[in-house]
């Protein structure tokens, strides 16, 4: 699975301050760390970046690629900032990825950019209206985005469909719809469509100690569903490999030796699959 390192986000204070001060140090340190932890792409989330977005994105792409031989995921709603980033992106390290288009007509020009620069594009399966209710609705929106991509000349193999992971603490039943959507997306086309998620949003709003646990279990479930890529914490995802066989055993109904671990896995799977109601203290029950 392709990990898109999530840590260079304007939401993080340290990153935001480095972006504002154009201080390469922290950016390069975080980019390097994520590369070493196994990221295949580095996400550069500069937010809406309405003022100076073009400069900022170019600075981010250059700063990252000076130290890391990886492509960059250009993460902003600012169309011009994306194009500015694409212009100077070093494609020697791989194709850049744009985050993102959707079924909102305002986001269609992104597809045109993807075609023009032959890069990959994330298609978020939301429309202009509210959030999708279930997997089927997401698949319907996905099909529309695919039609739109072909119209704009973006090959379908350049499109990553994103079912939109929501917070388990507030919209618990969406977790299993997202897993189902990842399966459905692969059936829409032959060869199967690529899929991506913003993984960590699953545990947004949960107690800090719970976050990696939820992230890791969701990751394994999505991996089993055939997910292609995840915007995630590369360190956590490297650690998953240790837990993965245990999680798979519990999923298969097997007993594992470590009873405490088994309870943790079982409770977390139950919460993600909607078999028990989520509460911040669900592991303590």
């Amino acid at each position: 699975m392709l990990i898109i390192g999530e840590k260079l986000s304007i939401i993080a204070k340290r990153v935001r301050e480095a972006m504002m001060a154009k201080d390469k140090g922290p950016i390069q340190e975080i980019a390097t760390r994520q590369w070493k932890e196994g990221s295949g792409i580095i996400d550069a989330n500069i937010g809406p970046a309405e003022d100076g977005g073009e400069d900022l994105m170019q600075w981010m792409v250059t700063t990252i690629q000076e130290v890391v031989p990886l492509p960059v995921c250009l993460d902003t709603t600012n169309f011009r900032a994306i194009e500015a980033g694409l212009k100077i992106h070093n494609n020697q390290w791989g194709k850049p990825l744009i985050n993102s288009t959707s079924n909102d007509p305002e986001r269609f020009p992104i597809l045109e950019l993807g075609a023009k620069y032959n890069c990959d594009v994330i298609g978020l399966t939301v429309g202009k209206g509210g959030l999708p209710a279930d997997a089927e609705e997401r698949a319907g929106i996905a099909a529309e985005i695919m039609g739109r991509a072909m119209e704009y000349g973006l090959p379908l193999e350049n499109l990553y469909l994103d079912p939109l992971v929501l917070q388990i603490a507030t919209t618990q039943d969406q977790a299993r719809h997202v897993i189902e959507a990842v399966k459905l997306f692969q059936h829409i086309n032959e060869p199967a469509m690529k899929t991506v998620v913003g993984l960590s949003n699953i545990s947004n709003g949960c107690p800090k100690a719970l976050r990696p646990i939820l992230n890791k279990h969701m990751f394994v479930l999505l991996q089993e569903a055939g997910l292609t890529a995840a915007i995630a914490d590369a360190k956590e995802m490297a650690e998953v490999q240790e837990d993965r066989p245990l999680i798979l055993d519990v999923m298969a109904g097997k007993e594992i030796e470590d009873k405490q671990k088994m309870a943790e896995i079982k409770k977390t799977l139950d919460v993600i699959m909607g078999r028990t109601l989520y509460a911040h203290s669900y592991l303590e029950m």
Partner: protein
Amino acid sequence: MAFTAPKETYSGRVYPVTIGTGEKAVTFGGENVLPFHSFEGETPNRPVIAIEIQDVPPADWPENVKKTYEPVSGDPVTWAKFCQDELKAKAIALRLVGTHPDRENRSPEEAVKTVKDVLAAVQVPVIILGSNHAEKDTSVLVAVAEAAKDRNCIIGKAQEANYKTIAAAAMANNHKLIAMSELDINLSKQLNILISQMGFDKEKVITDPMCSALGYGLEYTYSVMERIRLAALTQNDVTMQQPLLGDVGMYVWKVKETSASEADLPQWGAAEERGIAWEAETAGALLIAGAELLIMRHPKAIAAVETLIDELV
């Protein structure tokens, strides 16, 4: 071939909760089926309606419900006796709204006196409610819980901000406890877990997912209650098997439909009837959603809901 109605079987059961002492004690909850699905399992107790009174005269209540209690509501003891003796209340909910810092700001000592007087005057179970001021409620409810020791009351409402103190007071004095969260099923479950982690018996808790009136978010309360009940019954979730409270009167008798006069809105019809219908409709919906305990104000709305219950059980 004869028609056989399909039946659901459920893995969970709502805890039965008994309040009050002696002959007048009442029990609600205890069913192992969705509300009124007596054809699928056991519904040993009918829902209970408590009549709401308060420690200070109901100056802020709309005329059409206030006038019902006009001769008695100047004094909580007279008011309580009227509810018990004349209206045949099965339980009384005494709201200590006068302790709110923005109201009369009555002291915990004054609240204690009111509670003692009311308890001395009636035999039916009493639900003792604070003013929903999280901070003031801690001092008021701790004091009144002690004053009501061993009368097996319900003390409320414990919220995320103050549950520790209030739950400890209820536990020390053998009362039941209302745990209230604000229209969020996950936080409701969380609060029940936190309270039980203090050593409070989870079978002595009543869950209040927060009420809302018809036309003012009732569907949110309905949906949260329904999902709590489904978690309790179909997922056997022991943290969600507490009986549910619908604190109806307080939410209904402040909306425009229950207070607007006929002079202002003649097209809305008779004002008193409208208010009664509004309270009965809201309460009826919440019974269907899963409420086992209701707190209501207008005697005619209460009578209408009792009739509804008669028809459904």
